[in-house]
């Protein structure tokens, strides 16, 4: 990574840390936290969809299982949030193996279709197992994360928007860091090879099924994490937030942002979280415009925003040799 890029990223991270002190609007913070949670969802979905090239519609199932596991462990078994969150990730991982093992030997479109079925079955379980999950009524009064005490030095509490913002920010950066490292490793290369040409990947010794399961598992773990963060922020969860429509929402974030890139899903997540809010101004027309916008973006910007940015950047670089490197920031 060039030092110019490195400095820009560092600046962005510093800015993000100071954001709550600059913009004190509470609603803005709420949107930022929500965006952060969806950034984690989009980054993780990108691993299986963007890098490994396998379309999956069951991300909502991992999100939901993570949310419910975390909430139930804290509420019913009095676990600490700090234990519930990793356990939520484990629960999502287990689900990924249950779904992935029999499904990932199927070819692309069939795998995608199975994930549709699995997502709906999971949602149905969440909806109908009323004794455990509260059914359609959901789980209200989920406690926020319990405070971290460091002896007598200080106590970190997480029941304010500001503090939760930092919590989510830390997890977003952690997710980003881990996923970047993974994608740069031999696993990441294997995923790309599988995406580009499965037969070719097989011919150079890549265990196709094993790596597909790995990509699927990685995507699930972080979705579970996002679920836990979501549950202990919104403090209420119900099956209606974990439908196939939600999966499609995250898929759109990845694709519109630019799949297979690292920055694309981040853009996409922030955009698609903010967009319905922005469109709230046009209230009644909101979802109509949303559908229309989706169609227009998919038709005219099929490579997503990242590809569009790159196209714009290359316009500049054609103009002057000095700006020739301008596209590299977008190429992340």
């Amino acid at each position, binding site marked *: 990574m060039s030092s110019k890029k490195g400095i820009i990223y560092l600046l962005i991270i510093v800015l993000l840390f100071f954001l709550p002190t600059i913009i004190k609007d509470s609603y803005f913070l709420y949107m930022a936290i929500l965006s952060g949670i969806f950034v984690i969802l989009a980054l993780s979905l990108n691993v299986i969809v963007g890098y490994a090239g396998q379309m999956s519609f069951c991300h909502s199932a991992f999100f939901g299982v993570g949310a419910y596991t975390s909430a139930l462990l804290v509420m019913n078994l009095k676990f600490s949030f700090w234990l519930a969150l990793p356990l939520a990730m484990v629960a999502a991982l287990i689900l990924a193996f249950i779904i992935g093992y029999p499904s990932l030997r199927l070819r692309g479109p069939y795998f995608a279709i199975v994930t*549709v*079925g699995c997502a*709906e079955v999971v949602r149905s379980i969440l909806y109908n197992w009323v004794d455990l999950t509260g059914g359609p009524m959901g789980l209200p009064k989920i406690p926020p994360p319990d405070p971290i005490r460091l002896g007598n030095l200080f106590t970190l509490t997480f029941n304010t928007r500001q503090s939760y913002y930092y919590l989510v920010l830390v997890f977003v950066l952690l997710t980003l860091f881990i996923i970047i490292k993974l994608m740069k490793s031999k696993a990441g290369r294997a995923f790309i090879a599988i995406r580009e040409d499965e037969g070719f990947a097989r011919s150079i010794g890549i265990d196709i099924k094993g790596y597909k399961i790995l990509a699927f598992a990685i995507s699930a773990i972080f979705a579970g994490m996002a679920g836990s963060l979501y549950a202990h922020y919104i403090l209420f969860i119900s099956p209606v937030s974990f439908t196939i429509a939600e999966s499609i929402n995250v898929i759109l974030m990845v694709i519109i942002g630019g799949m297979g890139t690292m920055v694309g899903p981040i853009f996409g997540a922030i955009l698609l979280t903010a967009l319905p809010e922005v469109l709230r101004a046009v209230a009644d027309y909101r979802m109509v415009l949303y559908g229309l916008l989706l169609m227009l973006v998919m*038709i005219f910007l099929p490579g997503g925003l990242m590809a569009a940015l790159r196209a714009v950047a290359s316009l500049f670089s054609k103009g002057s040799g000095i700006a020739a490197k301008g596209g590299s920031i977008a190429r992340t």
Partner: protein
Amino acid sequence: MDTTFFIHLANGLAIGSSYVLIALGFTLIFGILDIIQLAHGEIYMLGAYCTYFLLELTGMSFFPALVVSAFVLAAVGLLLERILFRPLRTVPLLNLLLITIGLSIFLMNLANLLWTPEQRTIPTPYMLKTLHFLGLAITVQRVLVVVVSIIVMIAVILFIRRSRIGKAMRAVAQDKEGAAVAGININLVRYVTLAVGCGLASVAGSLVGPIYLVEPTMGATPVYKAFVIVILGGMGSVGGSIVGGLLLGVIETLSAAYISLALKDTVAFILMVLILWVRPAGLFGKILE
């Protein structure tokens, strides 16, 4: 077995018949145009609304309204082909899928905006009359669904098998390039496919409208079920769609009645997952390679 079983069976066949019509249109569009038309459920919904408004506003009776709606939605299909699917025919499958998802969201919410979420019923005299048959009382509408569906299915099958365009459609489904080289008018085939597909969806919506309620989201689950049926029956298999649709309708209704109401919509998905895990070719289809 008591009579309620047969009533459930009858209901299952009725809903299954409507599923067959939706699935037929869906599989034609997929098999011939390679488009997974996820807005197909909204065509179904629009067909129901069209029939409703024809009945309400013009005093037409049920059958004429059903036929007119079918033509209206067929025209919508032609429009969709002209302004959306034909210009985008080289776009990859995944992108098309998401475009149809966008279309689905657009149409569903447009309906919501124009006609409010208020649930309507399509008033027909057939809902009030019952048929007494072998000691059972079945609403005539349900019988109508099955009968009309069968008639339409036979008509479509004859059309595809016997007519010139039908043969052209089958040729395109098997081998697009070959068909083009053989001089088949691909554009015409595409138009006809979309018109027939949308017409079928409209008929399904109109038939079911009087039994269940007409509202903007009514197409959301049927399209996934059409998907499931096409998988169950094997991609592109007309016979498979028919058997799959009826089977699904019956299994769904019986599961809801005897196991748990909760299962009604989920059964389709459970079946689909199990079949794909065990026999990816579906019940009838060939393993697509």
